[in-house]
């Protein structure tokens, strides 16, 4: 199972490279670095959803707060069967459902509009709060970037999540240490993120964001945590899988050229 997931993650990385090259603009490093998490989440049986009934009432809500990661979300949704894979190449083009930053309900699986950072977490808190009020069993998973933690709204939302003891909320932070202007610790120091989240009364789990088994275990632990929300901090390599992109902040908001696409796809094929 884990081997299958690793293989799928590589395929999704290749899809992301193709989508971004075709689009000509977008973000490479985050989507590639988080491909393992997204693969595990949707294809590793970690959340409840119905492909043939995307707005099924009892589905778990996956909120992408860091909207610029959307290429990998679109790729995994297509892989899961929410829409045809052929649609992926329409990313960012006129008339496409796959907007450069996601728009709520525009395509199956897209729960919220995101782009301005920090907005998804508040909406995730709202969903979890509503579920709790109505004793619903579905859970909310909110995916965020580490640079996104600079936004004040994020910490307002964390205070609120802790106040209402939203144990049905799992926040996932991609700790890849880069943002547009460089290393997160240079732009706006964030460490220790784990200590900060613990102080905000979260159940904090730090894992290797490329390890499928760790991801599955952390998600399971979140489900059996009561009285507080869980934060899973994924340590990841930005640009993972494409050697010349890995750990280089330049690739945060840049896409491959045609020549770079060929190199990247060749590397990903070997994995």
């Amino acid at each position, binding site marked *: 199972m884990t081997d299958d997931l690793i293989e799928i993650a590589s395929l999704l990385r290749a899809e992301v490279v193709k989508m971004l090259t075709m689009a000509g603009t977008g973000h490479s490093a985050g989507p590639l670095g988080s491909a393992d998490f997204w693969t595990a989440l949707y294809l590793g049986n970690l959340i409840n959803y119905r492909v043939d009934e995307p707005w099924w009432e009892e589905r778990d*809500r996956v*909120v992408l707060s860091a909207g610029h990661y959307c290429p990998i979300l679109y790729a995994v949704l297509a892989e899961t069967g929410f829409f045809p894979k052929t649609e992926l190449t329409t990313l960012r083009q006129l008339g496409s459902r796959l907007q450069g930053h996601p*728009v*709520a*309900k525009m395509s199956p699986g897209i*729960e*919220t*509009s*995101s*782009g*301005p950072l*920090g*907005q*998804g*977490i*508040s*909406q*995730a*808190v*709202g*969903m*979890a*709060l*509503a*579920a709790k*009020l109505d004793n619903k069993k579905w859970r909310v998973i909110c995916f965020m970037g580490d640079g996104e933690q600079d936004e*004040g*709204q994020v910490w*307002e*939302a964390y*205070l*609120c999540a802790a*106040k209402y003891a939203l144990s049905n909320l799992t926040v996932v932070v991609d700790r890849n240490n880069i943002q547009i202007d460089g290393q997160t610790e240079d732009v706006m120091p964030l460490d220790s993120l784990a200590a900060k989240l613990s102080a905000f009364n979260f159940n904090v789990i730090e894992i290797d964001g490329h390890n499928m088994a760790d991801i599955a275990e952390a998600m399971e632990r979140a489900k059996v945590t009561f009285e507080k929300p869980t934060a899973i901090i994924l340590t990841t390599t930005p640009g993972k899988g494409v050697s010349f992109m890995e750990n280089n902040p330049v690739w945060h908001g840049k896409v491959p050229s045609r020549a770079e696409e060929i190199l990247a796809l060749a590397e990903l094929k070997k994995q």
Partner: protein
Amino acid sequence: MINPEMFLVNDLTKVVKMAMRDGYGEGLVEAGKRNPEVVALCADLTDSTRTDLFKAAFPDRFLEMGISEQNMMGVAAGMAATGKVPFVNSFACFSPGRNWEQLRISVCLSGNNVKIIGGHAGVGNGADGGNQQMFEDIALTRVLPNLTVVIPADYQQAKKMTLAIADYHGPVYMRMTKPKREVVTTGGTPLTIGKAQIFRLGKDVTVFACGAMVYEALAAAEELAGDIDVEVINVHTVKPLDKETVLKSVSKTGKVVTAEEHSIIGGLGGAIAELLGEELPTKMRRVGMKDRFGESGEPTELLVKFGMTKEAIIAQIKELI
């Protein structure tokens, strides 16, 4: 003459003064009774916004968000996405003042069914000074796609409007002022979102007003009666603007004054000017804040100083005629 179909109070010289926020607070409790999905969120201004009434009636459906307006707007959007009907409460200077981006993306772009209640707009926070007096909120909200913008004229209409927006599917911004002001409408006064109301029929000039300025416009019309026949229209929905009613009235009178407790830029006056500029160019004057901030003072003093009174409306009408 006063439009009999609007069932306004019988004698405009003997009106009672009540606060719009009280009408809202009572309306919200009623909305909560009618629809179990209605919830209220507040950012540490529960009594001031009169959401304390809802909190007392439905403690489980009242959510204290603390002083975090940005998060409050997002939480409301998330709740709306699951089928709740959230009412977001604060002062207009903070919401939509501080959380406009959350209103724009989390609420409007997604079409989430959130009701934003901007209290204490205009000079209401008088003594608190300019930073608490909001004269830019109609402009900020009117520009957002998918958002409906309503401004009740008085206590009674605020109550009725609260029930109307609770039933209406889609994001709505409702603006209110704080002080007790003249109540001109009655339980019998009709109300339809998007349908402007001709409160007074006239032929010489049309005054388009919103909020408490509707009373000022009616008072101005009474004072001028005999000399100048003023039509007064309550534009309680600034967006979508009731173009038909506006154009019909202006075709008749050919002269226009707008009156609002808001900047003359981007608000009701702006909306009317945009419409008339394209469809029926007409000489007009705008009564409102003249591109400036407020300052400390009693609301009544400030209205005089800033020229948002019956007298200011009369002066502008006379200038046009």
